[in-house]
């Protein structure tokens, strides 16, 4: 499902305790970083997270599955980003 007009998808990562691996727990649609942070914290509040982060979906670069859901983020040839 596409996000509402003017919103982007942010992937949500969190770890329960210091030293735990950061794991992917879901995503939120938000119009910007500030609301993405609030939405993530309020939506995924089932745990008392030690740390939570959001990452714009467009910033996730696939490594071994170029045909997967992140394919559009693959750098083009000559792209220096």
């Amino acid at each position, binding site marked *: 499902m596409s996000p509402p007009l003017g*919103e982007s998808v942010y992937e949500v990562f969190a770890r329960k305790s210091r030293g735990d691996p950061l794991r992917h727990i879901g995503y939120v*649609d938000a*119009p910007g970083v*500030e*609301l993405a942070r*609030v*939405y993530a914290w*309020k*939506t995924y509040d089932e745990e008392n997270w030690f740390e939570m982060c959001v990452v714009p979906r467009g910033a996730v670069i696939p490594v071994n599955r170029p045909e997967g859901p992140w394919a559009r983020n693959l750098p083009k040839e000559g792209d220096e980003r």
Partner: protein
Amino acid sequence: MGAEPAEGGGRAVTDSVPPPLSRHILTLADTKRLLGIRYSDWILGSPSIETGIAASSMAQDEWGHARLLYAMLKKLGYDPFVVEHTRPADRYYSAPALDRPFADWADFTAAVVVVDGALAVALESFAAGNFALARTRVPKMLAEEEYHRQFGSAWFARLAEAGGVAEARVSEAAMAMLPSTLAWLLPGDDVYDDLVAEERVRPAEQVRERCRDRLAATLARAGITLADIEPARDGWDAERRRGPGAPGEEAVERARGDRNRDLFVE
């Protein structure tokens, strides 16, 4: 104003005019309870699923904070159950901006910035005073309030920057709430002066400065200059620390739990 009653009594707020510290706590608790109700009206029908979830969470935050604040009244001789569940609407001490439901999302957004923001400033001042329960319990509330601040400032900016009807409505909504809310935050009456003298809260000038820090930049996005807003003190009710009027009966019935009265398990 009289001294605070001793711990252990079971007074109702309707028995007499509450002393300064009791009035202060009632003002904070009732405003949080009403704010929670107004937020809860938008759990469904807000602009997105995520926004509705945030509204739900914020409503629950406000109710949780209200309950902690009502519980502080026990230390002052009141029965929190009686205070929470038996008062008529005209015995509520809540901010007037919450007397009626929010008409639209602009009202919701303006309330997060103006009313929730003023509440946070008032709580911060209370936590800095010498009332032990406030010093220990309020900091956790303020940590949760930080997400309300981010939510409010981001949505306010979004509507203000959209221009047109969105900007006009959020500006109008904030302007409608500001005068009564500023008077609620800083009543400038003898009871508040007593609170300051007893070191329960920060002096008015410090609270005013914190209010500027918290609200001015956000409001400026919709062309509002906070320093130009005059607090509305017409018809001031010193006992309830607010202007005339009362929250709507529909909200007070929910706040008291009228429809659930026979099922209370406390």
